[in-house]
């Protein structure tokens, strides 16, 4: 069995009609609007190299292009430009070979509602040519692993969101794919189930499988992924291990400050405080006078900042301290929070 990685080169996707919800659905009988002003660039030249056997994360806010990337890599979305490979197979030339290698968990549940949980797994196995003995054994094992055994013979239609999500992941693992795609896998899961999911993902990875997951949850990216690409507006803005990425933020700590008045002099003085690496002023016309201070210490800076502010007769109205995290990295690159 050969190990398979994932590669993309200059991947581009432009939607001329409304982009699908979580890439792959939402159809209309209406004629496609060819008006170029309606074009939406979802991916703008994305190149990725996911090494066989790693857990790779795509981190970004909603609409960053994560699901479109997964859609292209899983044969469900046709790229406007560029190329993608799973292992040695070109996704858009050798679709059937690619489909054999991959397992996919879509962002929105797409379970076969006419079947029971066990039947969903059994038929999925059958599509991939597993013999009936292997199918039954594997289905029983996965149902147990995902704590679904007691609901195995009920129609999936009546399942809760969390159960559907667990079953979707079990289904994607049913044919033991070399590459597993998880699009926002922990959305809608309770904290306990999320931990179970993380454990299962790590375990699956230890058997040599490649896993690509998308998330806008930094904690998840940090806990699970060996390497990460942070994407925004369809392009990659940072890339590396979680530790490398966090270290790339000047100082590591981020203090988000807000003042009662705009004072250029104060901002200049802030830069001179010991430990401060960078000061970004984000005042706006609405009289919102803020500054993001990147520094290698957090709380101990606050009293010094307050003293400085008092010295320039500017009131310090709000302080928010962020510990070194991927969130700070995203803020540093885009000026926006991942959650915005």
């Amino acid at each position, binding site marked *: 069995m050969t190990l398979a990685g994932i590669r993309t080169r200059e991947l581009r996707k432009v939607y001329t009609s409304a982009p699908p919800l979580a890439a792959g659905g939402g159809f209309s009988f209406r004629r496609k609007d060819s008006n170029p002003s309606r074009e939406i660039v979802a991916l703008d030249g994305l190149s990725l190299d996911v090494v066989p056997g790693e857990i790779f994360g795509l981190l970004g806010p909603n609409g960053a292009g994560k699901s479109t990337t997964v859609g292209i890599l899983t044969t469900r*979305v046709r790229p406007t430009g560029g190329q993608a490979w799973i292992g040695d197979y070109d996704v858009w030339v050798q679709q059937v070979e690619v489909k054999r290698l991959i397992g996919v968990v879509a962002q929105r549940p*797409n379970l076969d509602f006419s079947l029971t949980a066990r039947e969903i797994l059994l*038929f999925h196995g059958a599509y991939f040519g597993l013999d009936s003995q292997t199918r039954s054994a594997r289905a029983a094992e996965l149902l147990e692993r995902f704590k679904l055994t007691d609901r195995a013979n009920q129609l999936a239609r009546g399942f809760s969101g969390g159960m559907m999500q667990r079953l979707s992941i079990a289904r994607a693992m049913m044919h033991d794919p070399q590459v597993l795609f998880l699009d926002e896998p922990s959305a809608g899961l309770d904290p306990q189930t999320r931990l179970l999911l993380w454990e299962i993902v790590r375990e699956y990875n230890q058997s040599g499988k490649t896993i690509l997951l998308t998330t806008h949850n930094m904690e998840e990216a940090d806990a699970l992924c060996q390497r990460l690409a942070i994407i925004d507006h369809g392009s990659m803005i940072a890339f590396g291990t979680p530790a490398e990425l966090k270290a790339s933020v000047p100082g590591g700590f981020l203090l988000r400050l807000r003042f009662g008045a705009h004072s250029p002099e104060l901002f200049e003085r802030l830069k001179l405080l010991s430990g401060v690496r960078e000061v970004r002023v984000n005042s706006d016309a609405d009289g919102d006078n803020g500054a993001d201070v990147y520094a290698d210490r957090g709380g101990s800076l606050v009293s010094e900042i307050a003293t400085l502010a008092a010295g320039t007769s500017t009131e310090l109205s709000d302080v928010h301290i962020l510990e070194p995290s991927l969130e700070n990295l995203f803020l540093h690159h885009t000026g926006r929070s991942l959650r915005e």
Partner: protein
Amino acid sequence: MNWKTFMALLARDAHVARRNFVPLVLQTFLQPMMFVFIFGRVMVSSGYMTTAYKSLLLPGIMALSMIFTGVWAVAMPLIGEFQFTREIEDRLLAPIENSWLAIEKVFFGAAQAIVAGLAVIPAAWLLLRPGVELNLSSPLTFAGITLLVAFLSACGGLALGCSIDQAKIGLMFSMVLTPLIFFGCTYYPWSALANFPILQKVVLVNPLVYASEGLRGTLVPQFPHLPILVVLLGLLIFDVLFLLVGLRQFRKKAVT
């Protein structure tokens, strides 16, 4: 082509159909049987229609049941699974070209249409007797026409199911299926339209005409009907046309 996957896809549809057996039977038989009862029994026994109408009606009802069953079996799941539940996605990821999934649907729909068509004959015969005179002089031609009608219904279902928006299902029935049925020579032979020469020409674009007339020509050839060669040609053309349109629409839907 991956036969294992293709057979597994068929097995899945068969499994779901077995699970929905009773509603499926009601849906297939209720309406045609009521029609047969009212027109073949009530109207004939009360003298408003002649006994001969019984024999004339049966092939039309068979055509109608087949078309309705095949279109429904393919179009309805496709409309729902592509747009609402998106449950088709798992099968689109099965290791087989996407088009084969569409072809699997067509085969399954055609099989259901054949079962419906063949079951309608004895059921209607029981309900109508005595007085039904079936003359199956060429079983092979009958089998060929039945097969073409079954594929016509399933390919039509594929084309419709992949072209119509979920919100417009009601419109599909009132705007597409109803005129198709009433101008499909199901309740009367094509020759009966002789007094409406324009309409008689226009209905020739209705594929159901060839289905009804073909089954009439092979089951009750004593009544006037379109020449069998014309019927075969008509059915073949519509089968291929609907299949090509259906596959094209399916591929468009399968990939964004």
